[in-house]
C-alpha cells in the first residue's frame, strides 16, 4: 500500500468514500436477489431524547429466516465522540455501512481539523443509505437511526431514515426494525419531557422487553447467558455505554414489577 498522493485536480478532499473509489477499493455491490434465509437480519432499536441529550438502545438478536443466528449482535455503535447510530435490517451491509460511516466522520475530522456538524453527519449517512438502494431493492434493506448531541445548540437530536436515504428529524423519539411498532408504542406512552438518565434507561429497557414479547425476531433480556440490550447515552460529555450490571438490575426491577411485587 503506497502513500496516496494526489494532484490538485484529482484530490478527493476529506471524503473517505471518494478516496476509496479513487483507489479502486470501494466495496462492490452484490448482484442478483438473495433469499432472506441466506443472510442475517438485525431487528429492533429505539432512540429517545432526554434532559441531558439522547439515548440509543437495541436488542441483541440476529435472525436468518426463522432461525436465531446470533445472540450477541451489537446494533448500537458510536459514530464519533458526540453521535451514535443504531441499525436494523440486513446485518452484513448494515455493519459495513456503520464501519464506513465511523471512518468517514473520523477521516473528515482529521483531514479538515474540525468535526462535521450534526446536520452534516446525518446528511452523510443519508447519502450512504441512498447508495445502498440497489441492494435494498434486492431485499438487503438497511434502516438506521442516527442520534447525537448538537454542540452548537446544546441539545440532543435524532433522525430516522427510509431506504431511499430520506432523512426525517424526530422531536422526541424514534424506532426502527421489525419490533419497532411495539417498542415505539411503549416509548410513546411512557415518554415525558426532560426525563433523567435513569428514567429514560428504564423506558428503553421496557420498550425492548415488550417488543421481544410480541416480535419473534427481537431478543429479550437473557439472564442465563448474561445478555442484555445495548443502551448508550450521548450527552455533552460524549458517548457512554451503560454497563450490563446496571441493565441487569433494571431488568430485574422490571420483571418484579410485572410479577406484581
Amino acid at each position, binding site marked *: *500500500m503506497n*502513500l496516496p498522493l494526489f494532484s490538485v485536480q484529482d484530490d478527493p478532499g476529506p471524503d*473517505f468514500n471518494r*478516496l*476509496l473509489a479513487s483507489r479502486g477499493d470501494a466495496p462492490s455491490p452484490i448482484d442478483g436477489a438473495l433469499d432472506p434465509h441466506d443472510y442475517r437480519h438485525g431487528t429492533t432499536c429505539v432512540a429517545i431524547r432526554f434532559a441531558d441529550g439522547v439515548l440509543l438502545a437495541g436488542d441483541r438478536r440476529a435472525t436468518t429466516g426463522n432461525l436465531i443466528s446470533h445472540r450477541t449482535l451489537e446494533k448500537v455503535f458510536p459514530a464519533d465522540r458526540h453521535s451514535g447510530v443504531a441499525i436494523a435490517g440486513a446485518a452484513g451491509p448494515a455493519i459495513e455501512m456503520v464501519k464506513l460511516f465511523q471512518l468517514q466522520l473520523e477521516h473528515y475530522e*482529521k483531514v479538515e481539523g474540525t468535526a462535521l456538524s450534526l446536520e452534516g453527519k446525518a446528511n452523510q449517512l443519508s447519502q450512504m443509505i441512498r447508495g445502498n438502494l440497489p441492494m435494498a431493492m434486492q431485499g438487503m434493506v438497511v434502516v438506521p437511526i442516527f442520534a447525537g448531541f448538537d454542540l452548537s445548540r446544546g441539545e440532543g437530536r435524532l433522525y430516522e431514515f427510509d431506504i431511499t436515504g430520506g432523512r426525517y428529524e424526530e422531536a422526541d423519539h424514534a424506532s426502527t426494525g421489525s419490533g419497532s411498532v411495539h417498542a415505539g408504542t411503549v416509548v410513546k406512552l411512557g415518554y415525558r419531557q426532560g426525563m433523567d438518565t435513569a428514567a429514560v434507561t428504564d423506558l428503553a429497557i421496557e420498550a425492548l422487553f415488550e417488543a421481544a414479547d410480541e416480535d419473534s425476531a427481537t431478543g429479550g433480556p437473557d439472564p442465563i447467558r448474561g445478555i442484555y440490550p445495548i443502551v448508550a447515552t450521548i450527552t455533552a460529555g460524549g458517548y457512554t455505554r451503560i454497563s450490563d450490571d446496571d441493565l441487569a438490575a433494571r431488568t430485574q426491577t422490571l420483571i418484579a414489577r410485572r410479577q406484581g411485587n
Partner: protein
Amino acid sequence: MNMPFYVAPEQVMKDRADYARKGIARGRSLVGFRFDNGVAICAENTSSTLRKVSEIYDRIAFAGVGKYNEFDQLRIAGVRHADMKGYSFSREDVDARSLANQYAQSLGQIFTHEMKPMEVEILVAEIGHAADGSGDQLFHILYDGTVIDEDMSVVLGGETEAIAERLGTFEQPPTLADGLRQAVVALGGPERALTADALEVAVLERGDHRRTFRRLDDPEITELLA
C-alpha cells in the same frame, strides 16, 4: 545546437540539499520528546489554525516543519494511508514504522526525480501499549528521504544543533511538565521566553481512549510551564 552543460551528480544533489535546508531553516523549529506517559510534541507556532502537529491515527501523530503546503500535503497523505490500511485490515495493523517508510520513499523519490525537493522535515511519532513506554517511537524523516529512529527526543527545523544542545539528553522519560519546560527553554534560547500563545503542543497519551492524540490548550500549557 546547444549542448547542455555537464553537472556532476554530486553537485546536483548538494545544490538540492542546500536549497531544501535553506527553506526549512526559514521556518520555526519544533521539539518532540518521550515523557513518562507517552510522547509530546512542542512547536513554536503563533498561528492557532495552521497546525504543525496533527493526529494521523489512534496512536500515531505527525509533525512537520518547513513549507506549510508541502508538509500539510504529506500529513493528509498519511491520514489517508492510515485510514485505508485500517479499513482494509484492522486498526491494530496500522503502525508508524510502515508509514515512516512510505514517507521516506516518497520524499526520496521527489528529491531525486522532481524539479524541486520538498522543503520539509517531518516527525512520525507512535506510542506503544507497554506502560513503561518501551514501544514508543520517534521517526525523524528528512527532505531527501533519510529516516532516523530517534531514541528520547528530536529537534526539527532550523538551528537544530543549538536547540538540541540546550535541550540536552534525557536519561529517563521526564514528566510532561518537566519535559515541556525544557523543550520551551531550548526552543526560545537565551534571549526569548516563549509563552503559551506562541506554542503549539500536542501529546499522544496512554489511557483508556482509543484515540490517544490530544491538543493542549493555552491555559493548560501555561499551567504546565509554571
